[in-house]
């Protein structure tokens, strides 16, 4: 226990300490650097999990499923902090942020990291719930950080809808406990994963069903599934871009991860209703967020809707179930968070270069800022699911495995994807090609994070390390 205890304390402790420090420390350069360093240390700790996993304690657990996500989260957290360092610098210059808020921003960033890591490693459904609520509240505060009318409005909307979601999720959690209590007995065990999963077959199916409905809606709100998605586009559009990246790239994943955990329980319990149809339906509904892409004028809001679409695809995949589809879902989660955050990095720089988020005021980006422009093109190509990038593989697996089992669903899915692709490239043409519009100053920023993500996605589209594959396949089995 003690030998393997270190990584987790790193993953959870470093952010807390950093947050405490960042609240105290002044100065933009120092805090930004500290932020990067802290996230980097967290990343190191997380990576060390690959080599030694701690034994599951009643509160903390590391297994095949969350191990990958912890590393992913910390990694994206690290790259985002690098990106945010240059981004926030510019925001300070143009005075959108005051140093006071900046300090607050960095502290919150670390708290958010802590909350998400906690949600991932929690072995207790109550703790997980608390962690996700914490993550929500911090992001609410960060979305509203610009104090503009739109920002406050977005934050408020996010807050209200998020709180309702949290409430529903809590009710679901309680119901799960109620279902577990007769079998496992009162007390902590009845809320502990490692115990729940082993005994879930004996739970009361009806209770589990109700529980799952509430959890689906509660955590689904965080995932941004339609029709619970309303908060997502505005929160992405109005908050600072690093937060948009973290939201799309990580928070949605964390919520979905929670959902998967509970799906496992139902998968074990044969008497309970199959969660598949529910998830498939919500997935398809969300998929048609693709239609919303056509009328978007704000570049960040557009990519937010694309996140909804992709969450729909992922939920659809898990809903279909089966080793292939589940594998595809897990892969899609990973790839999407990498790609989408990369896109938001690009978008952040673009918005700073152009001084606006209105697509109408951008154009010819590949002429004026080749690196940025082509980076965005590559990102959109990736998010549109075109090979040879990672998302294509997952979409390939989803569609082919579905079509053999439920042709009509697959056809609907395909049309949804196609509509999304069409919309994305319609906008991309306006942004990246054609006559240059708007200011064309070169962005003074490091493109390393963006291209690091895209490189990973590219590699994954062609070659996947066997270890990762093994974990995913293992989890895919558990997911039923």
């Amino acid at each position: 226990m003690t030998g393997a205890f270190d990584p987790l304390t790193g993953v959870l402790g470093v952010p807390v300490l950093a947050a405490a420090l960042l609240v105290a420390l002044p100065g933009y350069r120092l805090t930004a650097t500290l932020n990067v360093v802290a996230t980097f240390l967290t990343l190191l700790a997380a990576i060390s999990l690959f080599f030694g996993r701690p034994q599951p304690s009643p509160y903390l657990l590391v297994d095949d499923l969350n191990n990958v996500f912890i590393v992913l989260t910390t990694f994206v957290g690290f790259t985002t902090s690098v990106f945010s360092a240059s981004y926030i610098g510019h925001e300070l210059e143009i005075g959108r942020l005051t140093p006071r808020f900046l300090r607050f921003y960095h502290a919150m960033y670390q708290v958010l990291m802590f909350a998400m890591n906690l949600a991932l490693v929690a072995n207790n459904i109550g703790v997980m719930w608390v962690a996700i609520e914490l993550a929500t509240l911090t992001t609410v505060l960060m979305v509203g950080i610009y104090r503009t009318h739109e920002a406050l409005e977005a934050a408020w909307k996010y807050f209200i809808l998020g709180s309702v979601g949290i409430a529903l999720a809590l009710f679901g959690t309680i119901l799960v406990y109620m279902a577990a209590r007769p079998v496992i007995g009162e007390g902590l065990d009845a809320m502990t994963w490692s115990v729940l999963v082993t005994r879930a077959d004996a739970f009361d199916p009806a209770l589990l069903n109700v529980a799952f409905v509430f959890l689906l809606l509660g955590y689904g709100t965080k995932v941004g599934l339609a029709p619970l998605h309303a908060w997502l586009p505005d929160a992405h559009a109005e908050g600072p871009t690093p937060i948009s990246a973290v939201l799309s790239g990580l928070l949605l994943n964390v919520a979905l991860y929670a959902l998967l955990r509970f799906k496992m329980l139902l998968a074990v319990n044969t008497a309970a209703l199959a969660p598949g149809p529910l998830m498939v339906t919500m997935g398809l509904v969300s998929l048609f967020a693709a239609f919303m892409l056509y009328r978007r004028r704000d570049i960040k809001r557009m990519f937010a809707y694309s996140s909804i679409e992709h969450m729909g695809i992922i939920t659809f995949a898990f809903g279909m179930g089966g080793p292939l589809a589940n594998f595809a879902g897990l892969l899609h989660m990973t790839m999407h968070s990498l790609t989408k955050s990369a896109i938001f990095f690009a978008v952040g720089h673009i918005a700073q270069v152009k001084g606006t988020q209105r697509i109408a005021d951008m154009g010819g980006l590949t002429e004026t800022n080749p690196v940025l422009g082509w980076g965005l093109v590559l990102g959109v190509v990736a998010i549109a699911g075109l090979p040879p990038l990672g998302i294509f593989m997952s979409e390939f697996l989803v569609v082919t495995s579905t079509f053999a089992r439920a042709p009509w669903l697959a056809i609907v899915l395909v049309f949804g994807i196609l509509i999304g692709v069409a919309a994305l490239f319609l906008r991309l043409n306006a942004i990246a090609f054609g006559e240059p519009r708007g200011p064309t100053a070169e962005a003074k920023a490091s493109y390393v994070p963006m291209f690091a993500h895209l490189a990973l996605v590219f590699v994954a589209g062609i070659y996947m390390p066997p270890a990762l594959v093994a974990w995913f396949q293992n989890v895919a089995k558990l997911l039923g």
Partner: protein
Amino acid sequence: MVLLALACAAVLIATAALALLLADAARARVLVYGACLAVALVLLLIALLALLGVSRGPLAATLPLGIPWLGAHFRLDALAAFFLAVVSLGAAAASLFALGYGRHEPAPRRVLPFYPAFLAGMTIVVLADDAFTFLVSWEFMSLSSWALVMAHHRVGDNIRAGYVYLIMASFGTLALLLTFGLLAGPDGGYAFADMRGGHPSAALAASILVLALIGAGSKAGLVPLHVWLPLAHPAAPSHVSALMSGVMTKVAVYGFVRIVFDLLGTPAWWWSMLVLALGGVTAVMGVLYALMQHDLKRLLAYHTVENIGIIFIGLGLALAFKTHGMAWAAALALTAALLHVFNHSVFKSLLFFGAGAVLTATGERDMEHLGGLIHRMPQTAFAFLVGCAAISALPPLNGFVSEWLTFQAILLSPELPSWGLKFLVPAVGALLALSAALAAACFVKAFGVSFLGRARTPAAARAQETDRFSLAAMFSFAALCLIAGIVPGVFIDALAPVVQALVGDRMPVQSGVEWLSIVPIAESRSSYNGLLVFVFMVLSGALAAWAIHRLASDRLRRAPPWDCGYPDASPATEYTAASFAQPIRRVFGTVVFHAREHVDMPRPGDSRPARITVELRDLVWDVLYAPIADGVAYAADRLNHLQFLTIRQFLSLVFAALVLLLLVLAIWP
């Protein structure tokens, strides 16, 4: 062997990466295109060796890439070898052409990196032996060519061209995705080897065939899925246009052949009718569209549509014969189709090279602004003329051979037992003949208006002969047109293993026949000898010339043209492309394009010039695509209101969802 081919592809990709780094360097052009040329030649050698069955080393390989538990399978069988030969031949010529042509490229950064990637994509597609690798390389090919189409994104409506292209490409890919989904089955046997094993039910086979037709057809440019092609092909730089039109469409044909003839068992016969009918319609529609064009490159692109139609007629016949177990006839039809694949890749590339040369020399694609180029650029004119004659299926060039074989295959169709085909095939034959005749008319127009007559613009009058690399590329392909025309037997025999593998029979061996003539079935039935025809024509022409110049006069005097006595110096009185096409437009256009002519004739004494305007409508677009676009727009508008609800309304959405799900639970059995 296959590993060597893959290594070549890897070299191409490396070249692309290299080009990304030093695209602005002065010598980058030479470096990149030179490398591509070399690699393409190596690939060609490999392909030929494999095709002639004298290759060393394994013909299949599996790399630990792609889907982890499956790996990436590659295989170089006869079919793959033939198409690899087509691809690498076109690639080699295009690279050679580009060595000179690339000098005029305004934005090398947007071309050099993607060109080798494009070549690599096409190479890997034909080598792929599992669904995932196939689709990845297939879409990679589309993607890199999309980037090339967008190279001149600020010119005209190239952006729209690229957009339509990308959407149609994704559409096709998704259709193929579904095809493979059906072929692979629920437990994902994505390797082609596994697919060959499975025997799908009749309904399943039918849907597979239809999906494959949609997927491959949209890339090949089958009507009505052709809309992107005449937009995208001309938009790209000319050597890329040549590749897209001459080679990429063939890769699409490869996809169709691979799926339908190789992976799929034998579908019910009536699905061959679909292929046949589509082929016939495509052939005629394509050439009619082409006749209405004044943009040289767009005209050529539409002709690609026509030739794809001819190829699919051949494939449809082969399918019909195969499903009726007439392997020998299927062999003839399939050989015809594949031979046309090769021929078209040759002369279409040649023609696009010519168009590119004209474009660089005059800066004009619009034929109405050309004319008289035969005086300024004689060599280009000659090569282009050969290409025109070949694509118009004139003996003794290669285009005629494949169409002749197709006719021979059609003449076998009375043997088919099923009624539908009995009625369909002659009609398709008529369509084929019609398209051939119209193609000739169209290329009289293309060559006559842009190369003959008098220059219509100063640009055309100032044109200069193009560089020697381009000429080398053009003349080598012109020579190939002639060779393939006069000794087709060699090529037919080379195709034998492919056909044998796909339909289980082959055409009779041609190499034995005396005088190098070709005999599809039996000497008494039909035979053709391009060589003799060529020799005869040369002899008799030379004889006539000699006799007249010796025995009669050889005097010659230059004078102003006679023109019935009232010559007019102004080139404006020349026949334009539009006026040349007018009779045919009157005959066909009124029906097919709702062609309308508005004549604005000023009253006597009014000095205003008279104007005639022609209005054409693309019914395919109006009927098929416009409604879809409108539908999406409508849905987008409707759903867009969701963005503007109040928080309370959103909450009520959540509430409704919750209640709904609880109700579901309540009534759950």
